[in-house]
């Protein structure tokens, strides 16, 4: 067992982990941050995306030990302390960008990483960026629309609510 310490959503967190413990397992099972979801075992679905030192990472593909000393940000840390949703979360609600909610944490975290690098992405850029996040409910229509809206673009002309 190895001791790991990191900052998660601005607070110190530490625990004893096996060498093989994944960051996703550490977050979910040791820290109780169950907002990060695991939807596959081949690093394809993106439900587990978190930010590590400001970069979007699939937490099922990173060992907890590798995140020792890192700044980790998860879906639980996105809203304001009073519960107010951030702009991306709010856009997902406004535009019905989620249904069952399982892929949603990863979608929101990926969208945040996209908008940080590319504040006004085109539709094609949003779709290309989401290649590593699978949603089975929405057909992506309202996810793409929500992310474009969160970037401050007028989405009212996009087909059908």
């Amino acid at each position, binding site marked *: 067992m190895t001791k790991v310490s990191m900052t998660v959503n601005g607070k110190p967190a530490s625990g004893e982990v096996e060498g093989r413990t994944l960051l996703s397992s550490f977050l979910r099972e040791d820290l109780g941050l169950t907002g990060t979801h695991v939807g596959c075992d081949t690093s394809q679905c993106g439900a587990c995306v978190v930010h590590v030192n400001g970069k979007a990472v699939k937490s099922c593909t990173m060992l907890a030990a590798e995140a020792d000393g890192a700044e980790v940000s998860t879906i639980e840390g996105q809203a304001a302390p009073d519960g107010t949703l951030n702009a991306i979360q709010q856009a997902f609600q406004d535009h019905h960008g989620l249904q*069952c909610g399982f892929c949603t944490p990863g979608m929101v975290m990926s969208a945040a990483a996209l908008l940080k690098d590319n504040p006004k992405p085109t539709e094609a850029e949003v779709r290309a960026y989401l290649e590593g996040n699978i949603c089975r409910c929405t057909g992506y229509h309202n996810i793409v629309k929500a992310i474009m809206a969160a970037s401050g673009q007028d989405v009212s002309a996009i087909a059908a609510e």
Partner: protein
Amino acid sequence: MPKDSGIGASPKRREDLRFLTGTGNYTDDINLSGQAYVHFLRSDVAHGKINGIDTAAAAAMPGVIRIFTGADFEGVGSIPCGWQVTDRHGQPMQEPAHPVLAQGKVRYVGDAIAAVVAESREQARDAAEAIELDIEELPAVIDMKEAVKEGAPKVHDDLTSNLCYDWGFVEENKPAVEEAFANAAHVTTLELVNNRLVANPMEPRVAVGDFNRATGESTLYTTSQNPHVIRLLMGAFVLGIPEHKLRVIAPDVGGGFGTKIFHYAEEAFCTFAAKALNRAVKWTSTRSEAFMTDAHGRDHVTKIELALDAENNFTAIRTDTYANMGAYLSTFAPSVPTWLHGTLMAGNYKTPLIYVNVKAVFTNTVPVDAYRGAGRPEATFQLERVIDKAARELGVDPIALRRQNFITEFPYATPVAVEYDTGDYHATMDKLIDVADFAGFKARRAESEKNGKLRGLGVNCYIEACGIAPSNLVGQLGARAGLYESATVRVNATGGLVVMTGSHSHGQGHETSFPQVIADMIGIDESMVEIVHGDTANTPMGMGTYGSRSLAVGGSAMVRATEKIIAKAKKIAAHILEASDADIELKDGQFSVAGTDKSLAWGDVTLAAYVPHNYPLEDMEPGLEETAFYDPANFTYPSGAYACEVEVDPETGKITIERFAAADDFGNIVNPMIVDGQVHGGIGQGIGQALLEGCVYDENGQLLSASYMDYAMPRADDLPFYQVDHSCQTPCTHNPLGVKGCGEAGAIGSPPAVVNAVVDALQSAGKDVTHIDMPLTPNRVWSAMNS
């Protein structure tokens, strides 16, 4: 002006707040005190005889609590099938036993042989690798037509063959159908495959079993679309636990699409083991395991023939289908290729004579059952493809051919046993032509051609039978369940309501849409209504969510219970206002006496129900809580017309979906935003089926497409924005809301539009391609173009 509340409004979804902040409560988020973990050792051969299972070394591994094998389940019931189909000769289907853990033989890759329970997930997995298996591999049958040949290896030794049933529908029509074909002016024939799919909700299945020795109660937390059904099937048929000692909880569920309807062996195992070990036992499926154990969908091989007279009227349809059941009968598997498929073969058309033959076949593959649409996509695909082919053969416009044969008078009794209550197929087609901008297609095609691409436009119609289903009818058809829905409406003293429903929401947004209905009925704010679902301990017996039934059946139960509430509340109001019951009106949350200025607020009456000081106690009990069970009088029949525009790269065969439009008739609409979202998602899955998805077994029964590296899920960059319209509304005539259901339409209506569009594109370049089987991969399209 769009409404901002009640029926027809699109309030923001209240469930989003927890899902967007990581505070949902999915089954894998539940961890019980002292919980152990189970890992299933699964067969890596498709068919084999188990000669020995040596668990000694594994049992000595760190953290192992106990290892279970099939021997531990002798005397335990078989996983039951919920539907018995009767064959053409009046005989019941062949129905094999389905043990919780394999007994004697393994029958598909993924069949569970042993279960290791350990202190941690990793310890359970490590120990499973130390189990020594002696399995004698047997020849496997994978191909359905091979499986029913004389001398084929048998999946189940105790059955007479691999044929589950040979179903004819309507058997009495057969001679007349044959005669119609003999007299036809034209016959179009098409052989096709409806590709095998994996539903793939993003949340893998999870089960947590728990047992309280002091009370003798078992609890199962599970990723289910219908917890009461699981309680009944598992309690009564597998484990012998009476329902009052068994609680099943399906909390937030991350998508279902059919595959979470069924009762699975892992649920029974965790419940059984929790009692045997007196501690909670948890199983979390990996995605690889999900591919090998979640019931698959579709997998039909069909020949369809359409007979037309000299005026291009459809005179008869004849189909011959092989339907894969996999190795065991999953909960609703036998009903999918029969009663959910044969009954829809009339489609939107007044074909007078129809005969459907379905041979359901056992193979050494994962069980196959309902997946979004369930039988109706298979019916729609073959019908809409053969009509398109007929139009091309006859040199007529495919839309005109459809219009000429549309059913236009309702109610309409089809020759395949169902009666459509309402619809207007010309209206949805007219709407589609507008929404999809057919007028601009020619210019768009020219533009594509300028860029060296082929462009095609494909159109189809669909009809589905939803709002499943009248219990007395399905009982005659072999269902071993009723298909009503329930609701209890509890009004609190201060006027707020809690609705406990048997419907289950796993993405559909019931917590938002159901209160819209009640708010309208009473004239109060939606925020005063809370929806409770997913727990057998605090909801009345319900049948759950599938077959686009939640609002049509569950919503109707809620309406009926609320009507009882309002009737009682009016009596209380009449007593207090010293008026006759008949004179009390309820509007905007106020009870008033007709023709007077006397009134009482909703909250005054609800308070009186629980503080009955001035109350007709001699006539009525205090309290305000009512339950209703609603059993639908008929199916509902949503319908519509879909259009797809594709570009084909003639150099590579790669297809791009350029435009996709849907014009649906769902009857009345409660929440347009949610309805749009349901259609979007269905279209995404339908395009996935048409272009990308396909489950592949090799000839030995190895599942080659068992991960997201190998099974092509639709991604954001595979799909366009969709044009969705549901302004054509012919309300359902037999449920109180006039709703028809919208959950499956997209998945039913979209695959034929895609394939029709690709054929159109290829024929525009002079290619003699009349059909390509799904998924239309670049390889298949290029090969078809160049053969």
